């Protein structure tokens, strides 16, 4: 086995190694980390950031960025809360909320693809606007006790299917669907082509505007799905929910080996990246690291993961 092969193997499995090392360290420091209960707990927590990060992966692959994901989550959650409080049956409220959140994503898509705004600027503006609308609608007041008479909404966080928490099932199911969508369809190939070289993609008659719009639609859809899970978990919708979520999602994408300049990356990498962040958050609490050190260590791990990735792709 020569050095190039070792490099190739690392390139393929680097993130898996990082995750394994992290799991081993945390388990060595407190074996309670590796209980079934805690593993399911981690997946339940990771599903929210993970879903958002999946959407972010599509956007970043095209060379864009979506800063508005946290605001879409907040607005969708408040819309859901408003509907439930005014007596809408929860199934209908959930469906409307998801359609609504997906449309917010479409607004981003049109701004970037048709009006040709820079993704950073466009989604920075909608991030602020969507948060503003959330505050106006809710008057800044959270809706509480939402799952009381809403069994379907309650199932989104408390439910179990064959003992597996429902949010984990949604998370893994979407992992599979998006994996296929990105790796095995014409749409997926266009996403990569667009991020690799937009001009070349245009010349090879890829429908640039359509593909660019669609990635933001996907991001909006997944953010609103995450909103349903979070609202269910807290049994309330907070107008401030989702603030800063865009950064965790971007971190998961980057740790997962997707290049911020687009064109290169994988959904499965993002899945692992989200798990690494989740294990880190949970692990630091399980080990009992003081709050002062937690932030520092999180930043260090992100830096480390990205440097390793850089080395392996050289």
């Amino acid at each position, binding site marked *: 086995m020569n050095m190039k092969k070792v490099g190739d193997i690392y390139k393929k499995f680097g993130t898996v190694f990082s995750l394994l090392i992290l799991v081993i360290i945390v388990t060595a420091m*407190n074996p*309670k980390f590796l*209980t079934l*209960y*805690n593993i399911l*707990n981690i997946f*339940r*927590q990771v599903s929210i950031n993970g879903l958002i990060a999946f959407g972010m992966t599509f956007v970043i692959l095209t060379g864009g960025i979506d800063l508005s994901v946290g605001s879409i989550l907040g607005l969708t959650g408040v819309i859901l809360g408003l509907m439930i409080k005014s007596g809408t049956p929860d199934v209908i409220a959930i469906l409307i909320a998801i359609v609504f959140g997906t449309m917010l994503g479409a607004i981003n898509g049109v701004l970037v693809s048709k009006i040709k705004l820079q993704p950073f600027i466009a989604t920075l503006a909608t991030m602020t606007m969507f948060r503003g609308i959330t*505050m106006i609608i809710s*008057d*800044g*007041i*959270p809706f*509480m*006790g939402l799952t009381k008479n809403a069994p379907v909404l309650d199932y989104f*966080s*408390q439910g179990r299917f064959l003992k597996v928490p429902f949010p984990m099932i949604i998370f893994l199911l979407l992992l599979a669907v998006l994996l296929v969508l990105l790796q095995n369809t014409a749409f997926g190939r266009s996403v990569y082509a667009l991020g690799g070289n937009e001009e070349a993609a245009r010349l090879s008659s890829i429908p640039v505007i359509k593909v660019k719009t669609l990635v933001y639609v996907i991001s909006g859809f997944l953010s609103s799905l995450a909103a349903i899970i*979070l609202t269910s*978990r*807290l*049994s*309330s919708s*907070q*107008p*401030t*929910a989702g603030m800063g979520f865009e950064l965790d999602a971007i971190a998961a994408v980057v740790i997962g080996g997707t290049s911020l300049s687009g064109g290169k990356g994988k959904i499965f990498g993002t899945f692992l990246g989200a798990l690494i962040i989740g294990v880190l*958050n*949970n692990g630091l*609490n*399980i080990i*009992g690291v*003081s*709050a*002062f050190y*937690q932030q520092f260590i999180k930043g260090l791990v992100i830096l480390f993961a990205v440097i390793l990735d850089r080395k392996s792709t050289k």
Partner: protein
Amino acid sequence: MKKITTLLLIMTLLFTMAGCGKTTTSNENEKPKIALLMADLGNPYFHVLRDAVVNQGEELGYEVLVYDGQNDASKQPSQVEDAIQKGVNAIIINPSDESSTANSLKDAIAQDIPVVTVDRSVDVDGILSYLVTDNKKGGELAGKWLENKLPEGGNVVHIEGIIGTAPQRERGGGFLSIVDPEKNSNSKFKILDTAVGEFSMAPAEAAMSDLLAKHDDIDVVFTQNDTMAVGVARAIETAGRQDDGIIVIGFDGAKEAYDLIDQGKMAVTAVQDFKFIGSESVKYVDAYLKDGTKPEPRVLVDVYMSDDKK
């Protein structure tokens, strides 16, 4: 042409926004006016403070003009200027931070308009008084309440707010000074773990889920505000541990907390006496306007436990 269109668009937008703003016109010009500037009425808990000021003001014969800073520090200075323009007799302000309104309040003080700050101070000379909750004493009170509740001691989890903020240091410090054996050798409690909930529900819920996976012997959770207590109670429910008899203690006295206490999911909350702070601030300006009486420049207001009859 394009530029003109843009200009027109911006102007239309500005006019629409101006229309959105609430204009408070006084129909009884005789009444003296108090301006109440709230940092953020988005937080429902501050409605208690607003209502207390408005009620006390009306009782003493004032018209109270309420401004909402919407948690945007840049809004408040112009709101102060607007209040001075309207010729208010006094200003009660819940500032969004310590400095942004300093200059505009200086103008008010120069015109001998009395200024009282509530909940937060402003770094400017000549403030009539500053009323604030005694957070440290509140933390101690929560600790003492716990000592009474569990004389035999127990295992305590401490959920902190945003690290580095005054309420986080003071509430946590006060509580630990009673409960932490390292700080109080008489304490029979053990601080099992400390986690950060950032004064907000989702992070508190996540941290509590982690700690529930780690410990099966938690007796008490002290959260530094009620929003986090709601998240903690939900995590306990999700983990199916609601029958463990974990005592959840909150801080603030928010409506959500009282609801959870009624449902038995929370034990108690340390209540900030916003009603007292609100009505007292009006009395201060009233006394000053009538005969120049000056209150204490800084008034620390006691907290009480929600199960305490007041």
